[in-house]
């Protein structure tokens, strides 16, 4: 866990590599290509890159048209704009007609940092997963992002991939094989299981190590695909450990926590805690400070695990 890479950078590289393999790949951005890293693709394939300017709704519709025209569009902007400003266009022009468009939204969660609450999406997973036909992927590190982008390109249908600004530890090696809809179990655990997504996977692994020192055996699962959720992995962890903690850089309402709770309560109801943004907007600050401020550190996770274990029957 030494190298740190931002998932948005991995995305930028993945696009270039994909663009070399497939000449039907086109990329759209809304004046944020320097930040979303679609600029890397734009540099190599200027004829296949379309800056639509600060017009996210138009951008989504244009991507839809390119898809009908036989292209494979990747559309990027910040998560708050992709899923907020253009939510209805994503729903009506992409998901409802079930078009093969891949929305890769960057600067998700509070680690957007200093720009503040207006730019920090804490709702995007929730509002994307509720749309029919949408697949929602939140990769945890650079290598998983690269594979997720390739998997999204192979998959036929609308995809939403959430990447971020902050540099995160590399968790996966060359032997890792990402599959849409398949969780990765780092270790099974016994006393409780943490199901995490995105940047919180690294925190979950740190929490596991903290708890190990206290004699608590915690399993860690990377739930990279929020929809379709790997329900089998969720239920197996619940049956095995009897207590679940979810962790996401997102509201505790409607995101990974919501999805896991929905699966558990219908089949294997066990004590559960949701770590995430507690139904509040983001705020300006540096990434480290914000993660502490919102209770998203490994320490916060470890505390939550101990609390939920107490509730086990």
């Amino acid at each position: 866990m030494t190298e740190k890479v931002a998932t948005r950078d991995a995305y930028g590289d993945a696009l270039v590599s994909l663009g070399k393999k497939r000449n039907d790949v086109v990329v759209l951005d809304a004046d944020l290509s320097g930040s979303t890293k679609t600029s890397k693709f734009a540099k190599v394939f200027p004829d296949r890159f379309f800056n639509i300017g600060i017009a996210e709704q138009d951008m989504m519709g244009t991507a839809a048209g390119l898809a009908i025209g036989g292209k494979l569009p990747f559309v990027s902007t910040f998560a708050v704009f992709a899923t907020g400003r253009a939510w209805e266009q994503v729903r009506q022009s992409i998901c409802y007609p079930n078009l093969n468009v891949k929305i890769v939204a960057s600067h998700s969660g509070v680690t957007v940092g200093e720009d503040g609450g207006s730019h920090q999406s804490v709702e995007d997973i929730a509002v994307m997963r509720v749309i029919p036909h949408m697949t929602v992927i939140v990769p945890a590190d650079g290598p998983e992002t690269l594979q997720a982008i390739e998997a999204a390109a192979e998959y036929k249908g609308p995809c939403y991939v959430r990447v971020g600004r902050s540099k995160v530890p590399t968790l996966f090696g060359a032997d890792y094989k990402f599959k849409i809809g398949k969780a990765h179990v780092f270790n099974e655990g016994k006393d409780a299981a943490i199901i995490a997504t995105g940047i919180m996977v690294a925190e979950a692994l740190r929490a596991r190590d903290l708890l190990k020192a206290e004699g608590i055996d915690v399993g860690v699962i990377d739930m990279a695909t929020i929809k379709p959720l790997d329900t089998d992995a969720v239920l197996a962890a619940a049956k095995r450990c009897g207590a679940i903690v979810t962790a996401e850089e997102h509201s505790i309402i409607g995101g990974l926590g919501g999805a896991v709770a929905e699966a558990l309560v219908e089949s294997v109801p066990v004590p559960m805690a949701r770590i995430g943004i507690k139904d509040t907007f983001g705020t300006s600050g540096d990434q480290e400070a914000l993660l502490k401020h919102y209770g998203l550190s490994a320490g916060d996770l470890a505390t939550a695990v101990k609390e939920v274990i107490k509730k086990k029957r």
Partner: protein
Amino acid sequence: MAVTEEELKSLREKARRVRIDILKMLTECGSGHTGGSLSATDIVTALYFYKMKYDPKRPDWKERDNFILSKGHAAPVLYTALAHAGFIEHAELCTLRKLGSRLQGHPDSKCMPGVEISTGSLGQGLSVANGLALAHKLDKSSNRVYALLGDGELQEGQIWEAAMTAAHYKLDNICALVDNNGLQIDGPVEKVMGVEPITDKWRAFGWEVFDIDGHDMAAITAALDKAETVKGKPTMIICRTVKGKGSKVFEGKVEFHGTTPSKEELDIAMKELSGETVCK
């Protein structure tokens, strides 16, 4: 290349038959958008039976022209045109809006052959048209993209975003049309939220603009022909139309935006359109 008198006569007759089928379909269904389907009839007839290149046996034919009904509530005129063009059987028209029908209340590309994209939420179709046009440019194909907008629809901001995109990317393979019938749901457009001056606006956004009578088949066909010669910029044809055009029962009536004819109203309209008086 210019239209002949024979062709004009045939197109006018086709438009008459399309209007008859729209009204029968809507009366049978009891739900749907009468006024905006009738105002667009001559435009859609000219597109499908004079200008556009397509193959009803191959709705996915790579060399086809594309039509986007951005004002998706006028689905009845699109469905009728598709039936006359051979994409579906005439008999299917009477299934409009019924559970399980391919003829959804607003066009659904997932089930209906000949529909490029699902529409219904206003303001979105022109962006999609731009995307198609960009794809054709990348492929260096000569396919053309047509998009039909409503005048009330021009109130949606996304339309103007798309207008900028089309001009910026020099999409001269796009020809959009506005069905400028002057009415929307809550009343006359200029009273609800004025969109005039429409011509000046599109010109200011970098489009080539033609202003025509949207019920004059010679003018419509001539404008469509002229649009093909415009280079380096997209074309907008603003069609002055009458909402409900075809019968005094509906013409100029705000209330017929989203209501359908009663049997009595259908009978009156049929007499004016000289068609049968009984719904099949």
